[in-house]
């Protein structure tokens, strides 16, 4: 098979081809290594590990030959550069981590390698996963493989998992790991025509993932299809004693729920997600999604999540507060950058002043401010109480329905550079539909559902009950089938 035939396979069909020895892991890995090397314009990878990939592929081929193939045996994947990889530079796209080479492996990637997956390299992201456009990365932004019809303008792939989403959309890996604190899996997936799921908080271990906001961070896959996402999540998930918030529950065979009938499921449509200024196209896509699920036998129910509008302001207290605590560890003493200074305090201040980018500093400052003496109750405690209200909204809604259907984002991908013309609050509004699921800890998935008038992908979001990813996979499969989304970006970036 030609290289481009191999890279355009879904994870599912690649695994079948590997198992039936239609092609080897070495072949499909080499095809991806070549594709990655020819796609530097996208800036999706911040570290390519071709030798490691081919070494892992050879080992996978040997296991396949012995009949010992694991769940992901021989499949080349991309890893968001927020997951620690033993011996391979891990930066969180920040200058402050510099050349940090972990001496340990994150639990999620350990699971992937246990199951036979192959590492192609580390994927670009917003610095410390703080951003919605990938422009806060110390390595510069990722380019979205998609462009508007007849335009040469480079668009954002979204963020923070922009490298993961772009790599999957451009066939630079069969699937990728990502993380989601306020929408960082689902928004880039929607912007690139890929599938992304943020599982229930606690499904995937956070151990070895560079921390942003610990009560919100959750790992999940970005993939080409709903079934691929299900296969990846099964490997990534699972209880881990090294993360005290990891849930001690078994991991279902998520893929077995894709294609299952959704007849009789009740789908909630929350009226508060009909926000002011929402483009007509997004509204129309949402209506189409409702129609598709109705045709598949679902019952549509109107529900209310009355505290939705308070979710973003709540997030922008909780997340920066946790970030300012988590990022206190970057003091220049044990790893990463150390700047010069006359006193110890000066060393700290210079290290952090030079090592962190503007958005990260802004969030650390907000966090330090809302946690500082005299403001803790007024801001942090208040936000934690509103967060409870938001979670209670979901509990009440899930008494009337089995899952919610909403748009994934308030717009399609926009041009790189637009961020500079917006104030921070406008930028934060990108996450208006996604952030609620993080606050409530519930699982949510973005599924590509159509193209806008400029030929850019748009996504729909499904939100489920705590630990009920199964229903999301069934519904996601039904949406995917109805939408029949097959569009691919034109390969303008090759060469």
């Amino acid at each position, binding site marked *: 098979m030609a290289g481009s035939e191999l890279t355009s396979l879904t994870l599912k069909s690649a695994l079948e081809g590997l198992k039936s020895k239609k092609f080897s892991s070495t072949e499909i890995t080499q095809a991806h290594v070549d594709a990655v090397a020819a796609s530097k314009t996208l800036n999706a990878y911040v570290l390519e590990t071709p030798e490691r990939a081919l070494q892992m592929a050879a080992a996978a081929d040997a296991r396949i030959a012995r009949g010992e193939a694991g769940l992901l045996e021989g499949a080349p994947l991309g890893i968001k550069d927020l997951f620690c990889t033993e011996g391979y530079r891990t930066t969180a796209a920040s200058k402050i981590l510099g050349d940090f080479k972990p*001496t*340990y492996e994150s639990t999620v990637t350990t699971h992937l390698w246990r199951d036979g997956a192959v590492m192609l390299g580390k994927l670009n992201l917003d610095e410390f996963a703080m951003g919605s456009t990938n422009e806060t990365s110390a390595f510069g932004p990722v380019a979205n493989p998609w462009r508007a019809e007849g335009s040469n303008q480079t668009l954002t792939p979204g963020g923070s998992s922009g490298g993961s989403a772009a790599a999957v959309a451009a066939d630079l890996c069969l699937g990728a790991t990502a993380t989601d604190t306020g929408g960082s899996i689902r928004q880039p997936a929607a912007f690139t025509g890929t599938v992304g799921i943020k599982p*229930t*908080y*606690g499904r995937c271990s956070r151990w070895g993932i560079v921390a942003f906001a610990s*009560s*919100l961070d959750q790992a999940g896959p970005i993939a080409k299809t709903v079934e691929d996402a299900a296969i990846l999540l099964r490997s990534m998930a699972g209880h881990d*004693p090294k993360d*005290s*918030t990891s*849930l001690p529950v078994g991991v279902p065979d998520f893929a077995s729920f894709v294609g299952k009938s959704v007849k009789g499921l009740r789908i909630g449509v929350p009226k508060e997600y009909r926000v002011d200024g929402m483009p007509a196209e997004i509204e129309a896509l949402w209506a189409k999604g409702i129609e598709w699920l109705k045709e598949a036998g679902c019952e549509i129910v109107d529900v209310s999540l009355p505290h939705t*509008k*308070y979710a973003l*302001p709540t997030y*922008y*207290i909780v997340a920066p507060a946790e970030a*300012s605590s988590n990022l*206190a560890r970057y*003091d*220049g*003493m*044990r*790893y*990463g950058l*150390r700047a010069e200074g006359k006193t*110890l*305090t000066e060393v*700290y*201040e*210079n290290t*952090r*002043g*030079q090592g962190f980018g503007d958005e990260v*500093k*802004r969030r*650390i*400052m*907000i*966090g*330090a*401010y809302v946690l*500082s003496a005299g403001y803790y109750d007024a*801001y942090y*405690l*208040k*936000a*934690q*109480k*509103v*967060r*409870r*209200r938001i*979670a209670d909204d979901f509990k009440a809604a899930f008494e009337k329905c089995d899952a919610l259907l909403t748009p994934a984002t308030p717009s399609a991908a926009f041009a790189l550079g637009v961020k500079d013309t917006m*104030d*921070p*609050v406008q930028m934060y509004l990108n996450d208006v539909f996604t952030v609620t699921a*993080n*606050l*409530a*800890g519930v699982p949510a998935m973005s599924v590509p559902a159509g193209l806008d008038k400029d030929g850019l992908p748009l996504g729909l979001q499904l939100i489920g009950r705590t630990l009920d990813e199964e229903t999301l996979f069934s519904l996601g499969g039904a949406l995917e089938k109805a939408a029949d989304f097959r569009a691919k970006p034109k390969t303008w970036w090759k060469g």
Partner: protein
Amino acid sequence: MAIDAATVRKVAILARLNEPEARLEPLARELNGIMTWIEQLAEVDTDGVEPMASAVDHKLPLREDIVTEGGDPSRVLANAPSSKDNFFVVPKVVE
């Protein structure tokens, strides 16, 4: 409540961030914008609401108080900007 340059300076010191003098005013404006937007949380009635610190109802487990890993200083020090004789070397703290 308005955030001025002096508040920004104070917070920057608390956060150990060296912000140049020229950045203080613009940062004060940005932070004010963000905090003013956040003020709307005051509208929400939260009387008697238990603050939510964890995303799922899950009791934190306790583990045996035993050493599980360790005794490998070379791995601990592998990324140190400066180290000597199995110690981190840090700037002089006491004169």
